[in-house]
């Protein structure tokens, strides 16, 4: 899923500026699962805004609304009837959702309330960790199912570097060394001979470096 962090309240206030009629828009997908922008988090942020503005003696209106998804036009369209009643749409979706809402409501100010961080997994309740960088040419078959691009601090295709120590990465003792994990995994699965192969220079064109990406499936088109 896509994981993010909520922005600090002070930053959100700053971005809102003088806007006092706020449509706070959540998303029911990834950001709900990682506890950053679903219905509940919308409720918390709305409550914070109400507490703050009441305290400040201001007049305001905060409407809470959570869409099934903010990355599909048909859902975004559902707020068409009342979006214009608000000064801003404050989106709690990932960066993709925020942008798609902005594309759909061209005259509206659409603000992000979330910092989108990574594609990852739930390690345990309340803890998530990065797994993929969407490089567009997956090599997990070569690396024991562990992605060195996303999980090695230097994205080394032929690691580990000299900083790997006791299973941890040189950047800090909290971070596993991806290459230790890869070697362990190759060993466990009887594929150590894979380690001897040099992974070739990567063609990054399939990744972000090749420019914004697009995917088309003619057979799915209407």
């Amino acid at each position, binding site marked *: 899923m896509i994981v993010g962090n909520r922005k600090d309240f002070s930053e959100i206030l700053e971005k809102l500026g003088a806007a006092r009629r706020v449509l706070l828009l959540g998303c029911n997908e990834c950001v709900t699962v990682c506890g950053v922008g679903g219905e509940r988090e919308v409720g918390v942020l709305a409550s914070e805004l109400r507490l703050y503005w009441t305290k400040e003696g201001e007049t305001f209106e905060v409407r809470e609304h959570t869409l099934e998804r903010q990355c599909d036009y048909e859902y975004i369209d559902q707020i068409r009837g009342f979006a214009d009643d608000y000064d801003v749409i404050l989106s709690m979706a990932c960066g993709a959702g925020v942008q798609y809402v902005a594309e759909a409501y061209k005259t509206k100010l659409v603000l992000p309330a979330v910092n989108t961080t990574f594609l990852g997994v739930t390690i345990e309740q309340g803890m998530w960790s990065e797994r993929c960088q969407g490089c567009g040419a997956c090599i997990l078959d070569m690396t024991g199912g562990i992605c060195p691009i996303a999980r090695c601090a*230097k994205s*080394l*295709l032929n690691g580990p570097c000299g*900083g*790997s*120590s*006791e299973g941890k990465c*040189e950047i800090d003792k909290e971070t596993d060394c991806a290459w230790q994990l890869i070697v362990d995994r190759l060993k466990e699965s009887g594929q150590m001979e894979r380690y*001897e192969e*040099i992974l070739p220079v990567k063609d990054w064109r399939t990744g972000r470096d090749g420019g914004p990406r697009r995917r088309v499936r003619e057979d799915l088109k209407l």
Partner: protein
Amino acid sequence: MKTNSVIEKVLEQGGFVVTSECGPPRGADPEVVRRKGELLRGVVDGVNVTDNQTSVVRMSSLSACAILKGMGLEPILQMVCRDRNRIALQSDLLGAAALGINNVLCLSGDHQKFGDHPQGKNVYDIDSVQLIQTVARLRDEGKFLGGDEVKGRPMLFVGAAANPFADPFEIRAARLGKKVKAGCEFIQTQCIYNVERFTRWMEMVCERGLHERCGILAGVTPFKTAGMANYMKKNVPGMDVPDDMIARMKGVAKEKQAEEGIKICVETIERLREIPGVRGIHIMAIEWEEKVAEIVKAAGLLPRPEIQ
């Protein structure tokens, strides 16, 4: 003989190589480089010039190499993959060769987190093994990574680093094997304090026959103080400093510690020379270049061979 590298020649003649390093200044003053270079004249066969080591901005390695070259020294251009993509790396390789630089050392580079610009973006377009391949390809095949022909091949002797003490230990020799397979011709190791552990690594290296395809230079760093020994043990990832060595440093009075550090270093060199497969020594006297001559002399490694 592939290149004009002094390192290559000494290795070729079966000699014992001595290299050291010079960290460029954090400013534009060429005199700093010249001063450091002067201290190493006639004492070593090659001088590594670090590339923004520990991710702290310094004068570029290429420029400092050119200054040393101008003094008649033999620079070894260090190149990290952190700051440049394949376009810039290849371009600098051509530039280095054009300036008469004969050696390159291919490294991943420390993560920028440790430096003075932790906010920076890192590149890591290719890694150190792939950088070795790149140099070998430019030189031996006369081809850029992209496939086009190189007009005027860069005749560089290719080196890399190895850390015998990093984890996982069991793949350390295999990793060196990958570097050799990629085209690496000499290796400088991380500083060695635990000679026993290094010996075991060398055995693994020799088992694979890597010592015959690649000159292995054992790295040493003299301690200035007991505090430094302790710091390296505790804070430098992948550094193995045995407790008895720290105890030995602590055992002497503060003003005698530097001397003791040099003594340990010289003794270590003597032990390393005895290990089968070790073809030279790389002395990293961090901001202590004035001591290199003393160490080389005490270790009986002077005079250095005359190379034309």
